[in-house]
């Protein structure tokens, strides 16, 4: 294509003006070379960014393509023009360090056998006097709220079949309608109001016993995986000593505290009763049923007289799903009692019909899912709607959801909002958590480098 003289000269002038940039490789034939910027070249190695909070003395961030190159185009490649980070470095790093240290401290406190846990277990509490001292206090039914001294808001009890403290703060039901009870260990039945800030674990940290972690994710976006702070009244708290760090610590602590189902080593741990757990068979306060009264049979077989500990045995067996019978529990020596419990726990997994039948879901939820038009709904929409319907909505809310589900435009908009909300929340919390961990790691690396550096200098001096 022939160009006119003025245009050609202007082009030459431009070429001279932009220097190396105009010779960028990979130029598209459709675009003038001026805007064909070279591709970003990778930077080898992991940069150390522990000084990321240091005040920036200029605003020439450069670009990933070519930092500081005056011939490099800035448009779409540089942060030039953005405001400078103005936060003082020391304050930010101190805050991050506080959070990281609080996380470590909270995790250590939540670890079984830690001094904080022992202190918490040693605290006098109502009902503890009636319990035999041979049982670990933190594993006893009703001990969960006291563990909140070291790890507020979380219970560490879980039954051998994954039946744990599933009662939520206000309704005592976790994910009703699910085929299996959502036994969320690490979640207190009722966190004491006005106590220390209740820390939240993310979905990743809330271990649902007996269910793989990926099943706990919400379909649209994933529920928040990170941390969220909750204040004294369950409100999002703030500050380094608030809930951010403790929430992350709880994330790990709740996983550690989960009792492994069927672990013989935990056979001596009494199992929470239906009333205590609040949802032994998937319903709040529902009586255990469905299996023969094996406790009475075991008691009569043992032929021992009834002692105060018999109540504990009854409660443990009732927690396993066996109906408790008044006055039938036998007295047994401690060792035999532990053996009977262990055998029940182990054999329970081989019993036909175990675990006992639980209510599947609300009739309204079944009705809702039955009315969904599977021909019109996409698989993701269907899965999301069914998941949302099983969150324990009221009848009126289910009707509202059904009305939404039958209107394509409103359904799409609503599901977009749900997905966007939780994707955003999850992304924010995950990024926060990762960055705080990175900062903590960098500080550790800094200390290590300093230590190694001084040692090296000493060796060099010796040579």
């Amino acid at each position, binding site marked *: 294509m022939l160009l006119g003289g003025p245009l050609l000269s202007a082009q030459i002038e431009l070429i001279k003006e932009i220097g190396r940039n105009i010779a960028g490789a990979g130029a598209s034939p459709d675009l003038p070379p001026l805007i064909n910027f070279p591709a970003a070249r990778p930077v080898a190695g992991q940069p150390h960014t522990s000084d990321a909070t240091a005040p920036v003395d200029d605003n020439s961030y450069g670009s990933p393509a070519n930092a500081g190159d005056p011939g490099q185009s800035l448009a779409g490649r540089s942060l030039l023009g953005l405001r400078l980070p103005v936060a003082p470095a020391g304050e*930010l790093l101190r805050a991050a360090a506080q959070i990281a240290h609080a996380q470590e401290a909270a995790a250590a406190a939540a670890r079984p056998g830690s001094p904080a846990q022992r202190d918490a277990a040693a605290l006098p509490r109502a009902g503890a006097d009636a319990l035999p001292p041979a049982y670990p206090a933190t594993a006893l039914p009703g001990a969960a709220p006291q563990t909140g001294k070291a790890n507020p808001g979380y219970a560490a009890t879980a039954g051998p079949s994954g039946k744990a403290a599933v009662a939520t703060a206000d309704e005592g039901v976790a994910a009703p309608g699910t085929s299996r009870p959502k036994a969320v260990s690490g979640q207190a039945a009722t966190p004491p109001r006005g106590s220390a800030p209740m820390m939240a674990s993310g979905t990743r940290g*809330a271990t649902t016993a007996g269910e793989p972690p990926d099943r706990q994710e919400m379909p649209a976006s994933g529920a928040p995986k990170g941390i969220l702070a909750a204040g004294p009244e369950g409100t999002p708290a703030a500050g380094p000593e608030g809930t951010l760090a403790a929430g992350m610590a709880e994330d790990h602590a709740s996983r550690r505290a989960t009792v492994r189902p069927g672990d013989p080593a935990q056979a001596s741990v009494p199992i929470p009763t239906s009333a205590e757990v609040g949802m032994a068979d998937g319903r709040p306060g529902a009586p255990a049923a469905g299996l023969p009264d094996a406790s009475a049979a075991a008691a009569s077989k043992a032929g021992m007289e009834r002692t105060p500990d018999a109540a504990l045995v009854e409660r443990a067996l009732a927690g396993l799903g066996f109906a408790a019978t008044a006055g039938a529990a036998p007295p047994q020596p401690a060792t035999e009692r532990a053996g009977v419990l262990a055998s029940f726990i182990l054999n329970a997994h081989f019993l036909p019909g175990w675990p006992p039948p639980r209510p599947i879901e609300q009739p309204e939820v079944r009705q809702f899912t039955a009315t969904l038009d599977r021909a019109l709904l996409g698989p993701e929409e269907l899965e999301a709607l069914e998941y949302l319907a099983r969150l324990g909505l009221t009848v009126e809310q289910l009707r509202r959801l059904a009305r939404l589900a039958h209107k394509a435009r409103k359904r799409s908009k609503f599901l977009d909002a749900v997905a966007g909300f939780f994707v955003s929340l999850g992304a924010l919390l995950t990024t926060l958590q990762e960055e705080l961990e990175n900062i903590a790691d960098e500080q550790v690396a800094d200390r290590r480098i300093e230590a190694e550096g001084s040692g090296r200098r000493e060796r060099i001096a010796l040579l």
Partner: protein
Amino acid sequence: MSVTEPSDAVAPERNGIEVMFDLSRADAELLEEFCRRLLRQAGIDGEQFLRRLQAGESMGAALGLPPGITELLYSRACRWFGIGRADRAEPLFRALCIADGQVGDYWVGLGICLRIREDLDGARLAFATAARMRPGWAVPAFHACELAIRSGDLGAAAEEIARFHAAADDTIPERMRSEIERMRKALDMRRDRRA
């Protein structure tokens, strides 16, 4: 950080969540209920969080993030970007946009990271959002102009150049002015060639 009372930033007719997702009152209440129950499953009491969102506060403020945390993220994002790691800077800018979507700098940072990743649609949306959040700021127009030329939308590029010149003030670095002039010349050449 002390817990602040929800502000009256949003008119009582529509709360913050309704505005945020453009939902009706009933649908927003249903969304809140899902949020409440899902957070409760994760061991989180979301009542205060939802109340703050209803009051029109940003997500970061509703979460009660400690002061300085967003600035820390911004600082690290700029540093990562400055050493050539836009891939590390992008999630930080994204988190900042979520935490406080009213800050245009966050959106421009995210848009540039997306532009480097060749996510042109995402970058365009980010620059447009930045321009909406901070009207009269020339920086989004600067980057949007390059994006428009890159996409072959010469009309949009000319509009962005005009918008840049209209908004450019003393705070705009000289390098940006010269760069936009180069883009204008390139645009003229392109038009002349087509003509």
